[in-house]
């Protein structure tokens, strides 16, 4: 597949364009949507607010990457007590260009729960997992061809020592010459977007959708702002909003669609720590592939990117006590405890403000899980051989042995912690349960004729695993249903 950037079709002279289907967003939902539609013969325009950034042109997990490929430079927060920092990709390919690349199928019991509680028609676990198999081939999901990195092996070692379940998460990567350090991410700009372009889809980057123009229950066009600041209009027969769990409800709300839109944000909140070992272990530009699943789905452990800048952030909350450890950053790595939260948040578009306000409320159970998660993660690190563990919360103790875990438990308070999340979903839940769902069983907004959502917003709640596989499998399921029903109308 040729990963070359598609040619921009829009010129400064254009003030309007039209298509069969407008796809808003080019990430894990939008890219497969566009590719399958274009391959089925639909005239497709894809609009992406960010720019096209060639892989390898910026260092992974760097501040420059934050500038180029994340919304607001990666500084976005869901307000609450505590507030939760989150990140959104804003570039061609969306979050698939910048995330960890770890792949997890949606668990069968989660699919059944979604089907039953949200009343999703024709959501069959076997069919969805069959689509997941297709996705795995398309984006080349594979285990490492060689030994894992030291920070990853330490997670494994700690889990083995405690007798806890763990496994290696495969990634959507190609490894030339089977070299684990040469992994090439098979993100949307390498896979589904070139497929879409080859089948005639037109891809427009640096193009923000302000709102959809509605006429009764149908959308007729989108008002967009180009990178130059010029406003234009794109007319369509159908629109798929795939801007991710924050931007999708924001666009719909700005377009006057509000029923069950943006009021059920779900995330996987995480707390982190830095662990110091007696030898150099740090890998600045990659993340561990092992994850510890002993307490899943409530609680999972994994590793984060850990270059010196991120290490300083991990030590920041207790700098006067922890700060000197930064001088040993090459002997350190950052690990996280992620929980499956039962709290919920909101996405609220406010007239006059360009960006939506995002809120999230952790429940008491969530806070307790974060506490026990950080304590268990500290134990895991000690068993892995860490000489010192630095939990990321204000007033945290340095953990040097099991005896320190009680003090950690007693001093932890979620309000003092740096809570963050990268998995955002569920803001336009799909299903026939009208009390809960903003979209029907295949992503069409209830009570509209041609407005669809096809991204992480549709997942009824947080799946308890990295959600990209769930997002892609459901997006492909929905778009095939759309094609089979609507092709004759275009």
């Amino acid at each position, binding site marked *: 597949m040729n990963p070359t950037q598609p040619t921009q079709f829009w010129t400064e002279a254009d003030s309007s364009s039209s298509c069969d289907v407008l796809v808003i967003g080019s990430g894990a939902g939008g890219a497969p949507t566009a590719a399958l539609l274009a391959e089925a013969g639909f005239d497709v325009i894809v609009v992406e607010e960010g720019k096209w950034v060639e892989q390898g042109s910026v260092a992974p997990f*760097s*501040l420059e990457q934050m500038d180029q490929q994340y*919304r*607001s*430079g990666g*500084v*976005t*927060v869901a307000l609450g*007590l505590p*507030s939760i920092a989150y990140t959104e990709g804003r570039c061609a390919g969306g979050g698939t260009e910048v995330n960890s690349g770890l792949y997890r199928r949606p668990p069968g019991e989660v699919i059944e729960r979604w089907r039953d509680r949200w009343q999703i028609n024709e959501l069959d676990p076997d069919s969805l997992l069959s689509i997941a198999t297709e996705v795995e081939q398309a984006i080349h999901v594979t285990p490492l061809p060689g030994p894992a990195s030291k920070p990853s092996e330490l997670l494994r070692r700690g889990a083995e020592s405690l007798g806890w379940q763990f496994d290696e998460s495969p990634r959507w990567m190609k490894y030339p010459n089977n070299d684990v350090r040469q992994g090439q991410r098979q993100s949307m700009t390498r896979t589904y977007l070139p497929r879409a372009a080859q089948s005639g889809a037109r891809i427009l980057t640096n193009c923000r959708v302000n709102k959809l123009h509605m006429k009764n229950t149908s959308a007729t066009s989108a008002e967009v702002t180009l990178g130059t600041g010029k406003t234009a209009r794109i007319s369509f027969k159908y629109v798929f909003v795939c801007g991710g769990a924050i931007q999708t409800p924001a666009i719909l709300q700005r377009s006057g669609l509000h029923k069950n839109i943006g009021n059920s944000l779900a995330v996987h909140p995480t707390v982190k720590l830095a662990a110091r070992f007696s030898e150099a272990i740090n890998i600045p530009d990659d993340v561990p592939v092992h994850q510890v699943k002993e307490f899943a789905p409530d609680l999972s452990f994994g590793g984060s990117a850990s*270059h*010196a*800048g*991120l*290490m*300083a*952030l991990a030590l*920041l909350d207790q*700098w006067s006590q922890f*700060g*000197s*450890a*930064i*001088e040993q*950053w090459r002997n350190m790595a950052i690990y996280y405890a992620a929980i499956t939260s039962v709290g919920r948040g909101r996405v609220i578009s*406010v007239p006059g*403000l*360009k*960006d*939506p*306000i995002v809120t999230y409320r952790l429940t008491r159970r969530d806070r307790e899980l974060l506490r026990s998660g950080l304590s268990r993660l500290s134990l895991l690190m000690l068993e892995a051989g860490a000489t010192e563990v630095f939990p990321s919360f*204000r007033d945290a103790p340095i953990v040097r042995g099991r005896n320190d875990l009680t003090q950690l438990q007693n001093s932890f308070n979620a309000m003092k912690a740096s809570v963050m999340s990268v998995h955002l979903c569920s803001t336009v839940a799909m299903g026939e349960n009208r009390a809960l769902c903003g979209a029907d069983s295949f992503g069409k907004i209830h009570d509209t004729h041609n407005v669809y959502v096809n991204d992480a917003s549709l997942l009824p709640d947080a799946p308890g695993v990295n959600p990209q596989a769930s997002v892609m499998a459901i997006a492909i399921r929905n778009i095939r249903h759309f094609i089979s029903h609507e092709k004759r109308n275009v």
Partner: protein
Amino acid sequence: MQRAPSLHFLVHPTALSILRSDLPKVSADVAEQAANFTVRRIRTLPSHMRIGVTMIAAAVRLIGGISPEQFVVRISHTHLPLISEYFRLIRSLSYAFIWETWPDTRHDGSTSDGSHL
């Protein structure tokens, strides 16, 4: 065009004060670069966050204008919601910039080889 210089006026001196206190041996040039980076990033915050930060920054700047620098440093360690998050934002951006750019910076802001210079 008016907004950019005003945010610089409100945030930059506070960032410098915090860095000089937290990292007493940081060079003036590094502190200046980190404070400039912090202001640039705050300019790209989501609109509602930028409004909130501007309001808090204005209050802090007002206090800073009539109080000794040490007073601003002292309140930068407050645990009050929102206000503490403003100072945490400044520290996060500045520290991330310094240690990503010069990974061998010591915890007091100095370097063993003078690589900041």
